[in-house]
């Protein structure tokens, strides 16, 4: 019984402190802060020694605590009577300001709508964010009215009819956003989400090592070998091959840089076993085993383990997201301040560079009973002014071309303007409502290919699996 009761306590704690910011670190994407997947287990481990009396005492304390907290941090200010109540669920982002502060700014700016913010885990725990949203949306009871969604969930949410068709509200203003992003937010010719911020994979390199940004993979390999050969750095090129979502992000940019794709635009034709894809995965394998510019450790590395050696001055090249830039430039955390530059990822001869598109978007719940208010809130959240605020205060790159040019951004986040071209070249991961199943099949197959070297065989297996998934 202790076990069950402990779960209840945990639940109470979680509900009592929804805005608890126990994590002071600003690198919101970092993999180390992953939320614990098994919270109940932890408490049972440490509490199972409690006797009954002590247990009851603690439970009642937790209850009292929950009551006290809700009294003190409940609605902080009264809002106009008759205001429409809208709920907003989002992954947790913060920089100099938090999401809650941005939402409060909206509440203060007008009196017709009052938004209640529900915080979900950070985007580094993307699976948990997805799970929390899906559980809510599948009930189709209109809660939350507005939510934020990862670019890879667009087709799934639209296919399940959880995301409202936004065409009638925003059709005319889509030209203000980057075209690639609007395409990413479109499913079966309908706009189902509004772009919020953009992120993409990119190549970080050390400009102090005497080479310029490589255009092709061959150039990168040559420079990496030169850099490690001279003993200036330990590693040539770091990327991520842990059997996780990040592997698919890396995969997309390797295959894209050879003009290939995983799934064709029709959403049915699987091209993962075609020549361009096979060549690209062979290159990934060769980087580790033949050219040996990448340590085999990347097979268990996601973003953060690969970032640390680079900002520690041990690597010449790194593929990662935009969050690394800020860390690389802060003297407390980085040994390579002012020695780092960013460029598009290299490509195969006569092909084009490809970056993996990331970022979150705004969606409106199709079952929302307060559509107009919800749309109004989304309009404000995606407005140029709010995008500028997200850029300068939370470090999230704008999705409106005009906002990118603002002088404030040049002053506060100069790297964003340098990276504009990288963002514009970003390509999406396979677009299909079955993406969650597709990505699992890809992760398994590509991890096998990179570990065993059986590239063609693994990709053929992946092709068969994915064909079964998308045809079902």
């Amino acid at each position, binding site marked *: 019984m202790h076990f*069950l009761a402990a779960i209840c306590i945990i639940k109470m704690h979680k509900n009592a402190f929804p805005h608890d910011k126990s994590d002071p670190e600003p690198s919101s994407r970092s993999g*180390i802060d*992953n939320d*614990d*997947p*098994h919270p109940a*287990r*932890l408490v049972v*481990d*440490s509490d199972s020694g409690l006797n009954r009396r002590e247990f009851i005492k603690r439970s009642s304390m937790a209850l009292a605590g929950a009551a006290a907290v809700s009294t003190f941090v409940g609605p902080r200010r009264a809002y106009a009577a008759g205001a429409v109540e809208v709920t907003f669920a989002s992954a947790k982002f913060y920089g100099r300001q938090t999401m809650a502060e941005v939402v409060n700014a909206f509440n203060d700016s007008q009196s017709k709508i009052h938004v209640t913010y529900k915080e979900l885990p950070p985007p580094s725990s993307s*699976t948990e964010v*997805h*799970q929390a949203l*899906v559980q809510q949306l*599948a009930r189709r009871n209109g809660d939350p009215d507005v939510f934020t969604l990862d670019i890879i969930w667009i087709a*799934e*949410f639209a*296919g*399940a009819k959880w995301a409202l068709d936004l065409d009638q509200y925003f059709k005319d203003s889509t030209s203000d956003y980057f075209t690639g992003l609007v395409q990413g937010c479109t499913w079966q010719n309908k706009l189902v989400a509004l772009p919020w911020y953009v992120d993409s994979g990119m190549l970080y390199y050390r400009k102090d090592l005497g080479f310029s940004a490589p255009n092709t993979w061959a150039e990168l390999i040559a420079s990496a070998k030169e850099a490690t050969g001279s003993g200036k750095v*330990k590693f040539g090129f770091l990327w991520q*091959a*842990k*059997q*996780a979502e990040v592997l698919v992000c890396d995969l997309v940019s390797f295959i894209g840089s050879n003009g290939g794709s995983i799934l064709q635009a029709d959403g049915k034709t699987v091209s993962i076993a075609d020549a361009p894809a096979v060549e690209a995965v062979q290159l990934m394998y060769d980087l580790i085993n033949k050219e040996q510019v990448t*340590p*085999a*450790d*990347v*097979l*268990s*590395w996601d973003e953060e*383990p690969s970032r640390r*050696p680079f900002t520690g001055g041990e690597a010449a090249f790194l593929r990662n997201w935009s969050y690394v830039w800020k860390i690389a430039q802060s003297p407390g955390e980085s040994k390579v301040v002012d020695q780092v530059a960013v460029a598009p990822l290299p490509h195969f001869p006569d092909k084009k560079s490809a970056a993996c598109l990331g970022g979150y978007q705004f969606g409106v719940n199709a079952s929302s009973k307060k559509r107009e208010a919800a749309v109004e809130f989304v309009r404000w959240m995606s407005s140029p002014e709010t995008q500028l605020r997200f850029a300068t205060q939370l470090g999230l790159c704008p999705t409106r071309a005009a906002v990118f040019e603002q002088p404030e951004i040049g002053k506060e986040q100069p790297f964003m303007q340098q990276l504009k071209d990288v963002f514009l070249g970003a390509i999406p991961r396979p677009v299909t*409502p079955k993406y*969650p*199943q597709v*990505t*699992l099949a890809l*992760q*398994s197959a590509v*991890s*096998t290919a*990179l*570990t*065993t070297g059986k590239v063609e065989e693994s990709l053929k297996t992946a092709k068969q699996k994915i064909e079964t998934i998308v045809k079902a």
Partner: protein
Amino acid sequence: MPVARTLTQVHVESGMRFPRWRPGAWLLLVPALGAIGAVSVYPVLLGLWLSFRNTTLSSPDDAFIGVSNYQQLLADGQFWNAWGHTIEFTGASTLLETIIGLGMALVLTERFLGRGIVRAAMLIPWAIPTVVTSKMFGWLFDGQHGLVNYLARIFGLIHTNINWYGSPEFALPTIVMADVWKTTPFMALLLLAGLQTIPRSLTEAASIDGANPWQQFWMVRFPLLAPSLLIAAMFRALDAFRIFDLVYVLTGGGPADSTEVLSTLTYKNLFSALQFGYGSALSTLMFVTEIIIAVGFGIFLLKRFREVKL
């Protein structure tokens, strides 16, 4: 069995063959039964029911499809791969933890200076949350900067760094090591409790009869400890079978599915892919395997108890 005897006496004295139907008593049982039903029986049955459907949360599919989830599962290489790893992990970790735990318990049951402190300190690994343990072992066994590689190199055991989590041969054994470090104290504690129930007079008598310490252990202590040992091992095996956190944090099931276990595979199917039907079939098969393990230990235990009785 003093309790049983008293009950029989009561029955005989009051002349009753069967307990009388007492609505009041059943009424008092309702909250407990309700709670167990709601949190234990209902979810299991719901899971079973879902496993016969093709429910996928992100699609309108939600129909009865008979046993085809199970057919698909039994033909799924990934399932058997994960099943094998889970059995491997359960066997290896339970065996190692029982042997090392027994050693620790035998030491800690002897009197020596600072025993109390050692007993308390021993529990520290077990008190640390598993996710913290995972992170710690992630650092220790890091392929490039890990302490384990560093020490092994200094002592000349290896020449080049071992890629612990990035190679299929080493990843699962490394996770077993982390689990052994964390859970051995738990086994030691259970076995220590078992050892304490063995009267000292028995070992003293054996030593007077001329038994050496090895014989004292094998002939006297071990047979008496066996029931505790089996119960502890059963707990451990059932718990190890559910291994999730270490794998989830350290490798995510990779590389090349080499550390994929049933819990992580179920989690991926249920909560990433949202295939509630297929995922439920998976967890049902997991449940069945757990029952088989429990029954196996149970038969062993029952035999043991009968032998003791005779």
